């Protein structure tokens, strides 16, 4: 390549180190060549392609990608960052395993050793902890990006499903890892989390039909998960194995599948027009991937230096901290326990969320919007999805920041040292009224938007809704319901009217009946959760519909 190499000579005549020459010698050596396939590097398009194809780590990339795909503002590198975090977690996790023994006598002591006696042990633990939490966030962000650019649509439906599974497993990995330090934070978060499993229908001892199936605390699904009746030695071992071996293996397999499908489904940024310009992956994409990964490592490292992972006193199964909360990404679910019977909040709702997410690509038959951000072309899909995500985080916010001792409502600025009067007594609707209300909500809510054929004038609709709410609030005032509760009514009333009626009415009534019914049911359930929160927080309604024989409390 460089035939005329003039050895650089410094002004005073001494020979300087020639880096280009060294690089050439190294690259052309037999050792280097045996490791990296391909002939002499000439930096031609062919070379760059060969670099991708001939490298086991890079060959999941195509040779060329559309120019839009490498723009930061398209993918934001979110998937890549999630994967990088997974790699950091694997690395730090393996290192931590060298100093950690999963028994209740030793686990906590080993955490102390990591903190005080192991070189860089504290940094490893911090990095592991913060990466895990960051990964939960980034996987969710990645999912949002994919949704907003409609990248789940044909032919990527299946890969979206794999992605949802990966999200679930990310949460599960975080959850199983939460127990391992064996401090008070760990066992009580896990106790709260696993108690929900005890409320599963049929399989849990506290769930509906549980006792019918002969479920007790020592033979139900929670018992299987814990390997005992309480969080103990077996639980620690089980969670350790799940956390370190079983789930990572599963995630690895799913990741391979995920990447392979990305590659086969023509990589990211689906074409807007067939003749779009393409650029070479090496170096254009690879260098950006490197940037994202490096940035990610930098932030995690910095964060781990500045902020220590929490470690409280050693676990004591006899002493419950007040309040005891699940890990933050599950606090949303815990908060739902306030509004619904445990098996609905802890089992039905998560299942519906996971299945609902996986079903999205099969429900959305609108071909528009693939490969670019467009709220205008897909207002229904985008707003509803974002509303769902927002609700999840609002629930987390409430559970994490607004709940104090005895899980009572404390505003974030209020001191927990102040004793609060218990909340006013709650009441439930009579069964017939609740049943009618539920029937009307789901029956009318399902059918009405589809049947109204004429497009509704939004301005008028809002006026009507406002008038109705004002009228209702006047009635409320006369019934002795105080002013401070009315904002709830307005907020939830409007939210339902907009997202549960107007938006579906306008945008999805053209769907086929099957798709329409399934979509609408999901929308109504989501809005229902919101409405129920409003009823509880604003009007102290414990349950709208209750059938105690089956623990069916909604």
């Amino acid at each position, binding site marked *: 390549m460089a035939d005329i190499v003039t050895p650089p000579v410094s002004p005073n005549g001494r020979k300087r180190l020639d880096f280009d020459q060294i690089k050439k010698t190294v690259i052309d050596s037999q050792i280097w060549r045996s490791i990296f396939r391909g002939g002499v590097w000439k930096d031609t398009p062919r070379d760059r392609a060969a670099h991708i194809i001939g490298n086991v780590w890079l060959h999941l990339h195509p040779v060329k990608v559309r120019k839009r795909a490498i723009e930061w503002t398209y993918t934001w590198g979110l998937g890549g960052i999630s994967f990088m975090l997974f790699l950091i977690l694997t690395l730090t996790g393996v290192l931590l395993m060298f100093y950690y023994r999963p028994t209740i006598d030793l686990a906590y002591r080993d955490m102390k050793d990591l903190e005080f006696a192991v070189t860089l042990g504290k940094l490893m633990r911090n990095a592991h902890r913060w990466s895990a939490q960051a990964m939960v966030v980034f996987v969710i962000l990645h999912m949002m990006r994919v949704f907003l650019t409609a990248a789940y649509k044909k032919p990527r439906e299946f890969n979206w499903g794999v992605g949802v599974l990966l999200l679930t497993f990310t949460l599960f990995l975080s959850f199983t890892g939460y127990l391992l330090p064996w401090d008070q934070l760990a066992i009580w978060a896990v106790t709260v989390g696993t108690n929900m499993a005890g409320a599963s229908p049929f399989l849990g001892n506290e769930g509906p039909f549980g*006792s019918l199936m002969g479920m*007790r*605390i*020592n*033979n139900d699904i929670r*018992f*299987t998960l814990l*390997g*005992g*009746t*309480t969080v*103990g*030695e*077996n639980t620690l071992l089980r969670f350790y194995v799940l956390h370190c071996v079983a789930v990572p293996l599963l995630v690895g397999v799913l990741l391979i599948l995920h990447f392979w499908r990305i590659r086969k489904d023509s990589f990211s940024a689906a074409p807007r027009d067939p003749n779009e310009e393409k650029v070479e992956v090496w170096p254009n994409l690879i260098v950006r991937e490197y940037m994202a990964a490096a940035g990610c490592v930098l932030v995690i490292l910095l964060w781990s230096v500045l902020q220590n992972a929490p470690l409280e006193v050693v676990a004591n199964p*006899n*002493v*419950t901290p*007040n309040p005891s909360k699940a890990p933050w990404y599950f606090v949303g679910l815990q908060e739902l326990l306030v509004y619904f019977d445990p098996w609905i909040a802890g089992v039905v709702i998560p299942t519906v969320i996971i299945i609902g997410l996986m079903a999205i690509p099969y429900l959305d038959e609108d071909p528009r919007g693939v490969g670019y951000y467009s709220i205008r072309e897909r207002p229904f899909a985008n707003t509803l999805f974002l509303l769902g995500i927002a609700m999840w985080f609002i629930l987390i916010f409430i559970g994490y920041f607004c709940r104090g001792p*005895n899980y009572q409502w404390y505003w974030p600025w209020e001191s927990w040292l102040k004793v609060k009067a*218990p909340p006013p007594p709650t009441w439930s609707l009579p069964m017939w009224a609740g049943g009618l209300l539920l029937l009307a909500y789901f029956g009318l809510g399902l059918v009405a938007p589809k049947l109204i054929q004429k497009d509704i004038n939004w301005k008028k609709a809002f006026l009507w809704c406002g008038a109705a709410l004002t009228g209702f609030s006047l009635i409320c005032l006369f019934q002795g319901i105080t002013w401070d509760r009315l904002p709830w009514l307005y907020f939830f009333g409007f939210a339902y009217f907009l997202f549960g009626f107007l938006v579906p009415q306008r945008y999805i009534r053209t769907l086929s009946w099957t798709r329409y019914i399934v979509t609408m049911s999901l929308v109504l359930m989501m809005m229902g959760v919101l409405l129920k929160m409003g009823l509880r927080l604003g009007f102290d309604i414990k349950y709208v519909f209750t059938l*105690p024989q089956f623990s069916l409390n909604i």
Partner: protein
Amino acid sequence: MSEPTTPTSQPIPVPASKSVPANAAMTRRNFLWLGWSALVVFFTASAAATARFFFPNVIYEPSQKFNAGPAKDYPMGVSLKWQNEQRVWIERNEKGFTVFWARCTHLGCTPNWFADQNRFRCPCHGSNFNIEGDVIAGPAPKPLYRCAVEIASTGDLIIDKAILENRPGFRDKSPFFAQYQATV
């Protein structure tokens, strides 16, 4: 399962050029069926076995079931005999026995029994429970749990803390209530 194979079991004219016996196709198909079903059954069975595998047959926890001694030795009212050891209270009335799990449903402290006030009072956060275990004051969200109790043929009380109930209508019946009338 044999349905799909039935048509083939009838004699089908086979081209004479093939030297295979007439029922060979049938046997092969049958065999295939058998093979596939064996595989499916194997997978189902191993899945079930794996699920079963995750239920420990022995656990190193104190037994949930214990013998609380002869029923006739218990006086009327609430006995605190097993409070420290097994964390239960045994209540006897004219009709029989009820056993409460001595764990406040609020934060798991152990309440105390106040006979003069006929109530359990939790020292931690002031929850009060009446003799039915229902909350009459304080922050506890649920009534006290009752344990399953039976009177063995020997006349001993056998208490199982694994089986708990606190819903009215369920908790007053067997196995959470053991009928017992003192024989004079």
